[in-house]
């Protein structure tokens, strides 16, 4: 394997080669650090590059391999971590003003699991300030840029994580998702990302945005690799492609699997090219043997209202002390978002909680008629980056409404949702297909995603960064 082949080698194969001493973890890390040095100035995917930590970890992995000691399933695999998640010995910036930064004394539990599995922590990735937004236009760290077109947003808030995966700056990445922040950048950058069932991956050691809507999960170039990372992050070995759900499709054959297409709401107001790509993807799922039919998801249009109310109150509650003491240290769009939470009442919040429980029950009823719901991840492909601070604040607020329309219903209901690439527009911009399952049915959505990507092979397209 040459150094040039390493960045796009799948995680399982990279780990296998390191375990067999066909390549050293140090060679892997050096190949990625070299690529990061080349592309970081153009993509701004990282807030911090953890060269010393990565090389130390690589040394430990290589020593273990040489000594014949057991190494984990991610031995030598470079993983980037969204800079809102604690990595011991580093600063957690949340891509915010320096007055909010904190030193992490310990790893977040999910990071500790990745480290114990042999993963190499290669860097902390850029994000929308405090993860509260979807454009990744950041007044403190600058915008992360789409590797497919550097004049466009990568989506957010885990934009740096998606950029790093798509551009081959890491093999996989950690993201968080409160209204779509894993799936939106995955879709806009042409990679896979899964928001698992609420509570499936621990959120300790992560700067909160909205406690009852926050999820953590992986981004990777394929659903198969995302499954491997999710196994580790959730503390479960080998369950996310082989778990329960027998009779509901295998990786290569989806016969017996019922796919529901929620035409109302989730297939409305779409960019024509995104709609065409997603419709073709559904045809592919049918050709793989799935029973595809339309379903109705009642009250779906209320999910965005629930997400807005609950998130506004919880985010403002978390930030209240800082808002009073450091208001000027927030970016314009974030400040406006956080201040609005003061003007919702206690009854508004409780109504939001009751509405959430109601919507969850309504959504679960739909799964009597299907095993997986399928829809586009976003209405539109990536938009141009608006560099003006004042207008970008307005853009950011408006974009949140558009880009989270199909994703935040599954933060509200806590259902597992995967985004996989489903093609490119004529301008070469990626689009994503979202697959949603019953609670704890990550294995089913990941199997469908794997079957689709093996058939469609969009994951073999890599950006040429200009």
């Amino acid at each position, binding site marked *: 394997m040459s150094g040039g082949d390493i960045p796009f080698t799948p995680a399982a194969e990279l780990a296998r080669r390191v375990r067999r001493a066909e390549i050293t973890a140090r060679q892997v890390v050096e190949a990625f650090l070299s690529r990061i040095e080349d592309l970081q100035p153009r993509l701004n995917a990282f807030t911090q590059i953890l060269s010393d930590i990565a090389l130390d970890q690589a040394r430990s992995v290589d020593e273990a391999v040489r000594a014949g000691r057991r190494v984990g399933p991610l031995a030598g695999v470079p993983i980037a971590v969204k800079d809102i998640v604690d990595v011991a010995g580093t600063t957690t910036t949340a891509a915010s003003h320096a007055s909010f930064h904190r030193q992490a004394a310990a790893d977040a539990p999910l990071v500790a699991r990745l480290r114990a599995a042999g993963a190499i922590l290669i860097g902390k990735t850029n994000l929308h300030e405090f993860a509260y937004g979807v454009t990744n236009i950041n007044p403190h760290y600058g915008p992360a840029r789409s590797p497919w077109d550097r004049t466009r947003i990568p989506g957010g808030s885990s934009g740096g994580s998606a950029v790093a995966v798509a551009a081959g700056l890491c093999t996989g990445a950690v993201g968080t998702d409160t209204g779509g922040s894993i799936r939106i950048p995955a879709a806009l950058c042409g990679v896979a990302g899964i928001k698992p069932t609420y509570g499936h991956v621990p959120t300790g050691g992560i700067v909160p945005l909205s406690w009852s809507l926050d999820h953590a999960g992986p981004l990777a170039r394929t659903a198969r690799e995302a499954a491997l990372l999710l196994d580790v992050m959730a503390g479960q070995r080998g369950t996310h492609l082989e778990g329960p759900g027998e009779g509901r499709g295998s990786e290569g054959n989806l016969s017996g699997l019922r796919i529901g297409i929620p035409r109302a709401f989730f297939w409305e107001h779409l960019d024509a090219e995104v709609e065409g790509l997603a419709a073709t993807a559904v045809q592919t799922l049918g050709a793989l043997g799935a029973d595809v039919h339309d379903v109705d998801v009642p009250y779906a249009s209320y999910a965005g209202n629930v997400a807005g109310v609950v998130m506004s109150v919880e985010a403002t509650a978390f930030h209240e002390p800082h808002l009073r003491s450091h208001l000027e240290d927030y970016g314009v769009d974030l*400040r406006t978002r956080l201040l609005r939470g003061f003007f919702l009442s206690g009854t508004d919040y409780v109504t939001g909680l009751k509405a959430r429980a109601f919507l969850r029950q309504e959504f679960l009823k739909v799964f009597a008629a299907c095993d997986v719901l399928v829809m586009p991840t976003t209405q539109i492909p990536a938009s141009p980056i608006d560099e003006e601070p004042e207008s970008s604040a307005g853009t950011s607020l408006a974009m949140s409404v558009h880009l989270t329309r199909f994703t935040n219903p599954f933060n509200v209901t806590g259902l597992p949702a995967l985004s996989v690439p489903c093609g490119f527009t004529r301008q070469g911009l990626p689009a994503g297909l979202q697959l949603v399952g019953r609670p704890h049915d990550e294995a089913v959505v990941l199997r469908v995603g794997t079957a689709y990507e093996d058939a469609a092979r969009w994951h073999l397209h890599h950006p040429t960064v200009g």
Partner: protein
Amino acid sequence: MTEDDLLRLTAVLGLRLDRECVRDLMAEVERIRDAAQRLRELPLDLEASPFAPDADERR
């Protein structure tokens, strides 16, 4: 609520905002309050507690 009302309310909260900032905030406050009001259209069971152990089964 007018912009002047909002300016006074933010001052009461101990937040010093200029008028331009209040104008942006006004639009967002109206939007989020509309969202909260829209939730009252749902057929929610008012007697069911949102804090009962089975009310949030998302885990």
